[in-house]
Each structure stands twice: as structure tokens, then as C-alpha cells.
């Protein structure tokens, strides 16, 4: 009966598309939140919700740093404190320099006022709340860059401890700099915000609406950033910094951007929080705040915008409603059964214990949080799974622009690389003509991958030069090398495991796109055109592999087959529109049929004018593809020539097979 009624009511809902249903839900939620204080007029509850909202904004900011960019920041409350003290100092009576006429212009703008407390005239700062919000964002972002800069070269775990230290230092500084911050006692007499001449005072309702506005703004900003070039760059860094760098993402710039934006969110929240409380003490910003925010982000789901909001609200509910409520029940129960222990219990004091338990429990049982950022794409349907594989050469090549002849000549001269005492490459000369295919072969440990690493800037060279289209590549960072038109794949496949096929390949396009954070948030016409064009060309690239990848663009790459991951990596490299493609053992681990297919595909790329430098062990692949073969052994080039010459080269045979085998082969040749 009930289910029938429910089905009847929900039928019109189900007929809507997913987006429509989402929009409707969002509308209903907004309406409920907007009407809430009018319907439920209890100041304490509204105050508590307003607090929850400010924690939600903080969690959203931390989510940019931890969830998007993968930088575990344990001292995030520091930026909260900076915003709070910024507003506190410039609206309270703590810092009051002597008045002089130089202050007059500021007084005219309403930022300061002249005051006399019996004695000389003094300056009283009267920064408006509405002006403080954006400026606090800027000030905190500047601090974010300063704190972030020294930590950028550190691996993730060091970053955690350094940020922990910063988070500890800011309250210490606040406590010790009495003159500015009034020390441990804290700032008092902080101005309440005013709007159209009315002070907010101590009524919670206006704060509730400001908080609601901030949360809505930050959800909007976070979502826009996440689905942009900036967000993709952050997630690529989070998943694999080296690969992101090699695909054209400048890790320093984007990590700093994450720090700055996260700090800006916290700074704004600090202003709001302090305006609401009208006091600021060092204890409000200690490690407990940072860790509570971490719990919120972990609980909701790192990287999940709605998740962290839910996490913040749940934790706030737990503290202000659930735990006191359960405590009351336990007391009643204790009185009923006559247990002094139960009567004496106060679960609110257990809050932080529960925080710890939540962290542990989430890591053990639900690492991606209550609302995971990436939801699994639906599995392929039967038809897609059993479709005839289209193979052999690339399809739809007509959709991809051809390369101009003359592009892509690479000249490597006298390049040496040393690791400590080991000479990995010894004065190597290789010339890759434009439009040519050069294969590098050699036994394991001969320096082939090091060669690729030195070309792409991952490993510094000791000496030599690498000139590509007239530009020196040595000394450039990996993302700069990619921007010059050199793209690579990795021997041991380095995709971004938790991103989808489409997102992975889109990261490859990063260096060819321009949109920054502002354009991404505003969805400027330029940004929209650029994103649309990028997606089209990336889909065309993916379509080259027939129906191997296209049905799977929404799937997370860690679930793909080995061969498909190789294909995604090649597509990702091609997405940067390189002039030369460096393939590191592209067919390793593939079966003969797949190897053949890939070889043909590489051949068609070459046919379109792309220059290729390839490391390969399978000699039949090398023979089919390469014009020239270079043989490395122990970091030295021991031979160079056409594939059939190399097959007969004595030194090569010795390096690969040893002297005895070489003699046998030579003997057999002679007899034949």
C-alpha cells in the first residue's frame, strides 16, 4: 500500500533526467535552508547551524588542498587564524597608532576613525566586514604561498609534518605577540558586520545567511575548479607527480595555487567566524581545529565537494546534538538501573576520541569517504563487451591533423649521465631526423630509459646537448620539454590510476590549453570554447583505437586491461600534440596479436608525419618500424645502422648473446 503510494508519487520524478532531478533536489534544499530560520525560530539552533556552516567552508577549503591536490595539510587552521586576526586587529581597539593627517584619506574611505580616549588622538581601525572578506582571502592566500613554497619539494609525508609545525607556530606567534594580538587573552571588542546601517549584533539569523552564502559560494568555486584544466592538473599531481610533470603540468605552480586557494577559503571563514564571535584567542586555531577539519574531509570523502560538506555537517551534528542527546539517554538509563557509572558519563568529552575512531575506521573500511569523489562507472553492457574488436591501424585518422614535414628533428650530442660513480650514459650521439623512426635497443641496464629521462628533463645530464627544433632541451623542467613538443610514455605505465580514461587523456592536453583558475570559475566564453574543442579532439584521439577505449572513457583506468592502459598512455602523450613521440617499450607485456596491432598503429602515426623515437625489445617490431637502429650497451652506443645491418653486427651479438653464441651464429652464417 505504502510502496504503491510512493511509487505513484515518485513516478513523475523518475521520468526526469538525472540532471533535472539533481537541479530539483538542489532547489528544494536551497529553499529549505533559506526558510529554515523563519520556520524554526530558535536562536541556539540557528547559531549551531551557522557554526556548522563555517566548518563546512573550512572543510571545503581543506578539500582543495588535501582532496584535489593531494597535499596533506595538517596545519590548515593557521590560515583560519590569519583571516580571523586580520579582521580582529583591523576592527578592534587593540592596535591604535597615533593620529596624524596621513590617516585622513583612509578615514574618508571609512577604514579608520579618529578617536580620543583622553590623551593624544588615536587611530581606530574600522575595516568593513564586506571589504574584509575578499581582502582576507588575498592576505591568507599570500601566506598560503609563503608557507607552501618551502614545502613544495618535499614528499607528501614531510609536507604533513611541516604544515603541522606551521599550524602550531601561528597560535604561538599570536600568543607571544601581545602588542598586536593581546596574547592569550585574545582580541575583544571586534566589530559586528553592518549592512545598510544595521549592525548584525548578536542575533544568529544574519550570520546564518552569510554562512549559507559562503558555503554556496565555495561549493560553486570548488565544483567549477574541479571540472577544469586546473582541477585536472591538481588531480594528476595527486595521482602521480612525475607523470603529471612529464605531461606538461607545472607542479610548483599548481601546488602553490592549491595552497593559495585553500588558504583564501580559510581566511574568509576566519573573518566570518570572528565577526560572529566578536573575539579571537589563540586557542581557537590550534591543532584540534586542523584535525577536526581533516576528520570532516576524510569522513565525507577526500576530493568530493558535497562529501566534505556532509562530513562537516555530520560532525557538527554529532557534537552539538547527538552526543548530548545520547548522554541524556545514558543518564536516564543509569538512574533506572542505579548505575553511578552511567550517570557520571559525559559523551561530549569523548568527542575527540570519536574523531580518532572515525579516522581509523574510515581508513580501514571506507577510504574514499561516505560520498566518494569518483563513483565507479557502470560496467560495460553485454554488447559492448562482446563487440568485435576493430583492430589494425588507426581508425578515423582523417579527423586528426597531419604533421608537417620538417617538424621534430632531435639532435643528441655527447650526452653523459652519471649516478654517483656509475656512468649510465657515456657521451651518446643520436640524430633523429624529422619524420623518421629511430629505435633504441640494448640489453637491460644499458641506459635506454635513462636516455628518455634525460631528454624529457627527469634526470639531469652531466654534459652534452640535446637540441630539438633549434632549442636546447637540457636544463628544462619536464613540463617545459613537453611544451616544446616532446611527449613520452613510460616503460612501467604511469597513468593517473583513479582518474577516468577521458580525464587521463585530457591531462595530456594540459599544456596546449590556457585557462587559469579565474577563467575556469567564470566559464568565460574563451574557456568554454577551449574545453569543448579539447574534449572533441581528445575523443577523436581515443577513437583511433577503434572500440578498444571509446566505450570505456568514463571508467577509471586502474580497472583497464594492461594493453588498454598502454593505449591510454599513448593517447595521453598524443593529446599534447607532440612533434616527436618517445615510446618506452610500448608493446611490453602484450601478446603477439596486440603487438602487431600496436606496431601497425605506430606505423600509421609515422605515416602521418610524426617523428618517433622508440625503445623496444621485440626485434620484429623494430625491423618493421625503424629506419635506424641505435644499440646501447653499458651506457655506450655500440652500433648504429639500418635494422638488417644491426642484425649482423658482431658487437651487438656479443652484447646480447655473449661471445660463444656470436661465434656460433657467425659460423652458421658462413656455412650458409
Amino acid at each position, binding site marked *: 500500500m505504502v510502496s504503491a503510494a510512493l511509487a505513484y508519487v515518485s513516478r513523475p520524478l523518475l521520468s526526469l533526467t538525472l540532471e533535472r532531478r539533481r537541479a530539483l533536489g538542489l532547489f528544494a534544499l536551497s529553499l529549505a535552508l533559506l526558510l529554515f530560520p523563519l520556520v524554526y525560530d530558535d536562536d541556539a539552533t540557528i547559531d549551531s547551524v551557522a557554526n556548522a556552516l563555517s566548518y563546512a567552508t573550512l572543510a571545503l577549503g581543506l578539500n582543495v588542498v588535501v582532496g584535489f591536490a593531494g597535499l596533506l595539510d595538517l596545519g590548515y587552521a593557521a590560515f583560519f587564524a590569519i583571516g580571523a586576526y586580520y579582521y580582529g586587529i583591523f576592527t578592534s581597539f587593540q592596535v591604535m597608532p597615533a593620529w596624524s593627517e596621513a590617516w585622513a584619506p583612509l578615514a574618508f574611505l571609512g577604514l579608520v576613525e579618529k578617536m580620543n580616549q583622553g590623551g593624544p588622538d588615536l587611530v581606530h581601525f574600522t575595516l568593513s566586514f564586506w571589504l574584509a572578506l575578499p581582502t582576507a582571502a588575498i592576505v591568507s592566500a599570500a601566506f598560503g604561498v609563503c608557507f607552501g613554497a618551502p614545502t613544495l619539494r618535499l614528499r607528501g609525508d614531510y609536507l604533513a609534518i611541516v604544515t603541522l609545525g606551521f599550524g602550531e607556530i601561528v597560535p604561538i606567534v599570536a600568543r607571544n605577540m601581545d602588542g598586536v594580538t593581546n596574547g592569550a587573552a585574545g582580541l575583544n571588542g571586534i566589530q559586528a558586520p553592518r549592512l545598510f546601517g544595521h549592525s548584525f549584533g548578536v542575533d544568529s539569523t544574519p550570520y546564518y545567511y552569510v554562512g549559507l552564502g559562503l558555503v554556496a559560494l565555495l561549493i560553486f568555486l570548488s565544483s567549477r575548479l574541479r571540472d577544469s584544466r586546473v582541477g585536472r592538473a591538481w588531480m594528476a599531481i595527486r595521482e602521480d607527480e612525475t607523470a603529471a610533470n612529464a605531461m606538461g603540468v607545472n607542479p610548483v605552480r599548481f601546488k602553490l595555487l592549491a595552497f593559495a586557494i585553500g588558504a583564501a577559503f580559510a581566511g574568509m571563514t576566519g573573518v566570518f567566524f570572528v565577526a560572529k564571535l566578536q573575539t579571537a584567542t589563540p586557542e581557537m586555531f590550534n591543532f584540534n581545529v586542523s584535525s577536526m577539519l581533516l576528520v570532516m574531509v576524510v569522513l565525507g570523502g577526500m576530493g568530493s565537494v558535497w562529501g566534505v560538506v556532509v562530513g562537516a555537517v555530520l560532525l557538527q551534528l554529532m557534537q552539538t546534538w547527538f552526543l548530548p542527546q545520547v548522554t541524556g539517554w545514558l543518564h536516564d538509563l543509569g538512574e533506572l538501573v542505579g548505575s553511578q557509572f552511567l550517570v557520571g558519563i559525559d559523551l561530549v568529552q569523548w568527542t575527540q576520541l570519536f574523531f580518532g575512531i572515525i579516522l581509523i575506521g574510515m*581508513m580501514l573500511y571506507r577510504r574514499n569517504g561516505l560520498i566518494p569523489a569518483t563513483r565507479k562507472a557502470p560496467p560495460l553492457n553485454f554488447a559492448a563487451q562482446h563487440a568485435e574488436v576493430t583492430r589494425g591501424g588507426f581508425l578515423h585518422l582523417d579527423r586528426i591533423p597531419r604533421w608537417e614535414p620538417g617538424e621534430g628533428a632531435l639532435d643528441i650530442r655527447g650526452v653523459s649521465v652519471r649516478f654517483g660513480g656509475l656512468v649510465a650514459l657515456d657521451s651518446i650521439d643520436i640524430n633523429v631526423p624529422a619524420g623518421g623512426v629511430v629505435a633504441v635497443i640494448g640489453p637491460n641496464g644499458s641506459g635506454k630509459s635513462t636516455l628518455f629521462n634525460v631528454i624529457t628533463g627527469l634526470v639531469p645530464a652531466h654534459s652534452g646537448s640535446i637540441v630539438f627544433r633549434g632549442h636546447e632541451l637540457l636544463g628544462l623542467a619536464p613540463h617545459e620539454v613537453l611544451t616544446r613538443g616532446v611527449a613520452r610514455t613510460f616503460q612501467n605505465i604511469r597513468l593517473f590510476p583513479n582518474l577516468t580514461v577521458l580525464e587521463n587523456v585530457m591531462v595530456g592536453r594540459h599544456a596546449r590549453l590556457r585557462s587559469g583558475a579565474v577563467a575556469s570559475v567564470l566559464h568565460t566564453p574563451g574557456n568554454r570554447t577551449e574545453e569543448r574543442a579539447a574534449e572533441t579532439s581528445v575523443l577523436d584521439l581515443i577513437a583511433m583505437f577503434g572500440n578498444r577505449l571509446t566505450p570505456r572513457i568514463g571508467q577509471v583506468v586502474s580497472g583497464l586491461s594492461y594493453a588498454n592502459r598502454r593505449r591510454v598512455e599513448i593517447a595521453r602523450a598524443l593529446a599534447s600534440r607532440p612533434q616527436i613521440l618517445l615510446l618506452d617499450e610500448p608493446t611490453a607485456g602484450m601478446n603477439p596479436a596486440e603487438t602487431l596491432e600496436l606496431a601497425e598503429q605506430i606505423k600509421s602515426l609515422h605515416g602521418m608525419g610524426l617523428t618517433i623515437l622508440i625503445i623496444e625489445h621485440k626485434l620484429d617490431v623494430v625491423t618493421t618500424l625503424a629506419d635506424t637502429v641505435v644499440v646501447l650497451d653499458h651506457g655506450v652506443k655500440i652500433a648504429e645502422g639500418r635494422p638488417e645491418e644491426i642484425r649482423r653486427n658482431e658487437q651487438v651479438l656479443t652484447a646480447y648473446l655473449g661471445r660463444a653464441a656470436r661465434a656460433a651464429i657467425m659460423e652458421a652464417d658462413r656455412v650458409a
Partner: protein
Amino acid sequence: MTSTDLLLQQVINGLSLGAMYSLLALGFTLVYGIAELINFAHFNVFMVGAMVAMLTLQGFGLVGQETILTGLPLVGTLLAGFAVAMLVCGGIGVGIERVLLRPLRGVKGPAAMITTIGVSYVLFNVVLLTLGSDAKNFPNPLPPIVWHIGGAVLRLREVLIWVIALALMAGLTYFVQYTRLGKAMRATAQDPEAARMMGVEVDRVVMTAFFLGSALAGACGMIFGLYYNLAKVDIGFAAGLRAFTAAVLGGIGNVPGAMLGGVVIGLIEAVSGQTIGTAWTDVIIFGLLVLVLIVRPAGLMGRLAPNKS
């Protein structure tokens, strides 16, 4: 007191602090060397060690500084205090590894580190809820023997701290360098996969690292109590951050480096507290950590564990 005496006194104090930080830093370094993990639980395992040592001494009927013991009873009580604190902490370390961290081994990203933060929180709050937040009077049965070196004062407790810390470090060095399990540990730190293929039981090695590190934290807790005559629920954070700085300063993963780093940090704390002011000690130590990480991330003595990627 002349300024030389003052300096000498601060060196004595600094060496005692350094002995503590060295022991605590060893725990960070052992676990980091083997598991590439910053163990945030270590902060509060140390605090639990201090509490357990205190309860053990109180169990022998010692209260505050009134009861003075000598001879065999003194040695026996101290040994018991150390043994219980070390065993309990070692057990906690093994428990953390076995129950909470082993399921996360091989999981990429910050999951394991977040778990240790959670454990740290749980330990802290369990002690807070059961023993309270007040500073406790840690029983100290040592006779008040004092030597005067010029104007500086050297107390028996300082000598004892140095001797015990040195003995523990010598024992650890011997273990890591010469025993079968110690060699297995070093091999695992270099390359867990290769070690596994050569027959090293990596699970056992990781567990041993957690046991040893945590047991040393327990010993450190006892030493802390004897040195300051107090134990408090929030002692873990400051001491832990300094010890971590010591581990990084010496080169994380490097056992002798952690010992050296601890002594350096102890000396810096004592001297800067004298000259600049204790309110800024945390800022100075932490500034040093950032500086080391920027200028010489491998630390003074270099990391022994290669950077696994």
C-alpha cells in the same frame, strides 16, 4: 654563575634532553626506514609510556619525591619501571601495526598516515578520559646526589639518563648491525621486494621495527618522568615534534643520525631557551626543521633508506 658555567649547565641540560629526543627519534626513523611512514601515533605512545611508568612506580608504593631508594631496591624499581613501560608501549606499537596498518600496506596515498593520526587521537583521549588532564607528580626514587663542576650542577638523574640512553642505543645498534633480524631489517629498508624474495619475512621485520621504536618511546617516557618529575597527557606533541626534527636532521631512516640529531636538538633547545626565551623554542626548532628540509633534505648524515617510488 659565570657565563661559562651557565653554558656548561645548558650543555648538561641539553644532553639530557638530547638523550630523550634521540630515543624518540629512533622510533620515527626505524618505522620510516622500513615502512616509509611517519608514525604520528609515536607522539602519544611516548606519552602513554610516561603514564605507564608512573603507574608502575606508584604500584611499588612510591609517591612523589618523598620516597628515596638506594641499592638493590632502587635498581629493581627502575628496571621494573623501564621494563613495563617498554613492554606496554612495544605491545601497543605491534598492535597498531598488526591490526590497523597491515591491511593498508600497499595502499597508495596518505591512508596509513591518517590512520596513525587517528591512533594518536585515540591514545590521547583514552588517557585524558581515564587519568585526567592535570600534571601528575611522577615518582622519583633517586637519591639527591649532586656534583658541582665549577658553577654548574650535575645531578645523578642526568648521569643515569645518559647511561640508560647510551645503553639502549648501543643495544639497538648491535641489534641492527649484527643480528639476523637486524640484517633483515636493513635489507627490507633498502628494498622490501628483493628482501622478500631472499626469504626475509617482511611482516616480521615491520612488526619488529614498530616494537623496537615503540619500546624506545616507552623508555623515553620513563626518562621524561624522571627528568621533569611530571607526566601530563599533552607532553607528546612538543617532544614528538622535536624528536621528529631530530630524525630529519640526522637523516631519516638513519639510526646513528637520529641519535646525533636528538643531541643537537636537545642542545639547541637548552641554549636557545637560555638566550632567546622558552616561549619561542617551538618556533626555533620548527624553523630548523623547515631549513633542514629545504637546504639538506637528506639530513646531516644522509638517508640510509633509498627513496622508493
